[in-house]
């Protein structure tokens, strides 16, 4: 496959293995992880969700639901995305974050596609599922921003979640297109310039699901590592919202290095259904990106 496809696939598989690896240590502290695992670097399941090894959580599942909706629709429809999230919620998934649940429920009850702006929607639940939008709008940065915000607002309507999702989307896009990590760093620093609370160096040390803590931890792990394994392992061993932090670190590192440089032992462990779904979605989403923006 061409290098761009390989990097897009790297981003998506990176997301999934980061989720599966991090889920084992979600809600643990760094010192608890160190005591239990020394360094947690293998996909073994377990964790608070009692996962089977290779099982993914809402991070990957919501991404797959969004990707599937875009492919089925043949383009973009916020309502199709909302319907996909609703169908996913009703399938009794292993976990759903509270803000996502409330937003999807609101859509179910009144059909509205946009959450009311709210202080308590600055979690990472909308940013974590945005990768399919990035891949499908690779050559259209205007559509990238617009569609990212439309899907985000189904559940999360907060300026910090907005800014972080768009910044992560641009970073991922540049990496998939083959740009250097420096291009990525510029986008990160622009985010910090506009919203100083996102300052990530030196790393402030917080790992909660608050979008600021998550993004800081992800950027620090990605910018101070030189492989997919290193980025994800560094990210998840800090605990906290480790599955989402791992997923986003995996997305960026996978986009940077490509699918072939993701540890083979992780890919072998990943849920085969998820692995094949991702392998099917990537070319289909890339095909959408070469259409004119609709």
């Amino acid at each position, binding site marked *: 496959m061409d290098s761009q496809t390989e990097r897009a696939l790297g981003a998506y598989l990176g997301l999934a293995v980061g989720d599966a690896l991090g889920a084992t240590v979600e809600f643990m502290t760094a010192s608890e992880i160190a005591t239990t695992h020394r360094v947690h670097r293998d996909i073994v399941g377990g964790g608070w969700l009692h996962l089977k090894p290779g099982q993914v959580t809402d991070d990957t599942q919501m991404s797959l639901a969004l990707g599937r909706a875009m492919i089925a629709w043949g383009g973009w429809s916020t309502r199709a995305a909302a319907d996909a999230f609703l169908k996913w*919620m009703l399938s009794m998934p292993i976990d*759903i974050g*509270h803000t996502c*649940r*409330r937003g*999807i*429920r609101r859509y*179910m*009850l009144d059909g509205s596609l946009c959450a009311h702006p709210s202080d*308590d929607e600055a979690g990472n639940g909308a940013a974590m599922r945005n990768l399919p939008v990035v891949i499908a709008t690779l050559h259209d940065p205007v559509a990238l921003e617009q569609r990212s915000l439309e899907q985000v607002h189904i559940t999360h309507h907060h300026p910090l979640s907005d800014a972080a999702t768009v910044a992560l989307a641009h970073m991922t896009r540049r990496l998939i297109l083959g740009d250097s990590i420096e291009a990525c760093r510029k986008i990160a620093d622009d985010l910090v310039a506009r919203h100083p609370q996102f300052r990530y160096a030196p790393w402030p040390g917080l790992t909660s699901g608050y979008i600021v803590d998550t993004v800081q931890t992800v950027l620090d792990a990605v910018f101070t590592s030189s492989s997919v394994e290193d980025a994800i392992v560094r990210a998840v061993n800090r605990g906290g919202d480790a599955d989402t932090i791992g997923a986003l670190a995996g997305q960026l590192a996978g986009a940077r290095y490509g699918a072939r440089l993701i540890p083979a032992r992780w890919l072998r462990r990943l849920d085969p259904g998820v692995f094949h779904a991702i392998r099917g979605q990537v070319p289909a989403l890339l095909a959408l990106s070469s259409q004119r923006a609709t």
Partner: protein
Amino acid sequence: MKLIIAIIKPFKLEEVKDALADVGIEGMTVTEVKGFGRQKGHTEIYRGSEYTVDFLPKVKLEIVVPDELVAKCAEAIVKAAKTGKIGDGKVFVVPVEEAIRIRTDERGESAV
């Protein structure tokens, strides 16, 4: 927000939980209770035995939900819990002035 209290037949618990999941409700607190009804002396089969004592085992659900979910929540419970036979139970709605999620200190609707 409201506290919905539902008294139902024990074997209906799974069906009611599934019906609530279909309206996006997952959190609730359940208690085993004894039900005394207006209809005296009826018998009910419970775990294979016929009861003629004056109470019957019931299950009480307590679910705090935002106002906009009350109607759907009550409807889902009634539909799923109904058998049409005596003792199907009750749904009561009680006002709630504050809710707190202990883990995060969140208040109000984001606490439930």
